[in-house]
């Protein structure tokens, strides 16, 4: 990491732990009684059907939406849910890598790297030169984007899916995240680009960090995760260690899970 800031010591047991976490939108209960702990250096795969609540769960964990009840601990310390926000999650070194939802399409990369936590003077004016410099540094040193025509002034709209993913990953690396949340990071990527993303997940593990990894491709997530958490209609229905269940068995398990309600769910 080219980052000079020293991270807080990694002496905690769980980077994040939810207790009886519930999220409701009006009368719809999106998440019910979620109990989930992510270890300091654990890769947790989150799987489940569309609408099972995967995205809602990570949004609640990262301060995008406010849980209706329950408790949240970060680095074993309780968090005041009323004051929890994305800004706070960033300060606590949580980073998200979404393919579609984490970059402003028409904005240049120097804005995208820092949006929501700009380098500003005391009147709120952005230090554009510094942001450009750091953005170029991330592009060239972390991402190997040298020489393919992408620089800090490029807009996201001109980038391919893999390049976008690279930008979001570079941002997470630059801010030295302890927990990285990947929401379907390989969807619609070329094979070469998929491999880069999977390498990144391995790097997270090797560098002592934690990840929550949402993925439709069971083979990817089964190969990389330390633990699989299965969500179904807003509840955690299973915790599976890939070493205990091979890919075939996992597939059968998930199909069986949906069988009784297959007609309804469609």
């Amino acid at each position, binding site marked *: 990491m080219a980052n000079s800031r020293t991270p807080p010591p990694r002496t905690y047991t769980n980077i994040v732990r939810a207790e009886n976490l519930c999220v409701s939108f009006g009368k719809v209960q999106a998440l019910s009684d979620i109990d989930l702990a992510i270890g300091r250096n654990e890769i947790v795969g989150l799987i489940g059907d569309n609408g099972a609540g995967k995205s809602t769960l990570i949004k609640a964990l990262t301060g995008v939406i406010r849980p209706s009840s329950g408790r949240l601990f970060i680095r074993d310390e309780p968090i005041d849910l009323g004051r929890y926000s994305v800004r706070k999650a960033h300060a606590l070194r949580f980073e998200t890598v979404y393919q579609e939802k984490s970059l402003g399409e028409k904005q240049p990369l120097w804005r995208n790297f820092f949006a929501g936590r700009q380098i500003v003077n005391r009147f709120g004016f952005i230090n554009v030169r510094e942001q450009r410099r750091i953005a170029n540094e991330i592009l060239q040193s972390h991402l190997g984007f040298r020489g393919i*025509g*992408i620089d800090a002034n490029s807009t996201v709209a001109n980038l*391919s899916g893999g390049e976008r993913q690279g930008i979001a990953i570079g941002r997470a690396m630059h801010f030295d995240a302890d927990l990285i949340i990947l929401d379907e990071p390989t969807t619609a990527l070329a094979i070469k680009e998929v491999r880069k993303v999977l390498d990144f997940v391995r790097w997270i593990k090797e560098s002592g960090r934690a990840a929550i990894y949402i993925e439709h491709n069971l083979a990817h997530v089964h190969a990389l995760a330390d633990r699989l958490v299965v969500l179904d209609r807003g509840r955690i229905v299973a915790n599976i260690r890939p070493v205990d269940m091979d890919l075939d068995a996992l597939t059968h398990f998930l199909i069986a899970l949906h069988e009784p309600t297959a007609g309804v769910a469609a």
Partner: protein
Amino acid sequence: MSGARAKEAPAASMRSPALLLTGRRLEGLPIIVVFFVLIGIFTACAPRVFLRWPIYDSFLVTIPPLLILSLGLTLVIAAGEIDLSFPAVIQFSGFLFAFCSLQLSQPWLGLAAALAGGALVGLVNGVLVAIVGVPSIIITIGTSFFWSGVATVLCGGLSYALTDLQATPIANIFAGTLFGIPAEAFWALGAAVVGWFILNRHRFGEHLLFIGDSQTVAQVLGINVVRERIKLFTMMGAVAGFASFLLTIQNLNYFATQGQGMLLSALAGVFIGGSSVFGGSATMVGSVFGALIIGMLDAGIVATGVAGFWVEVIVGLVFIVAVVLHIGLENPARLKQLRRRLAFRE
């Protein structure tokens, strides 16, 4: 998202020329060119008018209120919103200023009241849009009727002559002259510089651009979308309040229907300037020249000898052509798609 498309190598080589073509290196370049071409045409057709100072002097008086409105609207458009209630603010804030000046003999208090009254209108808009969730194009129609009605009720439909303010400090500062140039022009220029820095260099402007791009993304990035939208509409209200004050003090007269004709002109200035109709990208330089063009067309067309009836036809044409061109520049894929569709028809 079709990330799988094999575009890496060709896309990289295409990138830089495309950037130059869109004129991003010099903000608002296409519209600046159009502006000078128009001046050229007017000068060629009516040299006796356009080679002398008085016409420009009058532009520098009449255009500033319009231009200031366009600057405020640029931020609104950047965030993917719209505000149709600013003409009502011009009535309402103008009344507040006129009332304070005439009845209380406190023109400076009047200026403060005009700004605060505008901000109040904007705050109500902002809360209804950001918290209640009514689309801004709808709710500002409603608030527009409301505040315009309030202004009419308060002034009883009468106009206020403010000739007592003539040559007072407040009139000299805002509607006097400096080095022979109308003071309003300096205020508009100052507003344009401030507006440019807010949009392009301030955190607030960046938040607006991201919100205009996508609210979901803005939220995920930790931008407080609700608060920034309320701030945006409140600011727009205050800007309209200032434009109203400027208009009132330069005319030294308040009349109950002032500002009625400015709705379309101010918005046209923004869109002719090249700010995206979809939000997420906007240009202050473009809006300045857009407003200048709109403000000039009227007098220009009349001076060239074309009957005054044609003014709106021409304004409409300029607007449509400009917006279509800008969409093409902003999104070449759309233009290509259009071309393909046309080819298919043939």
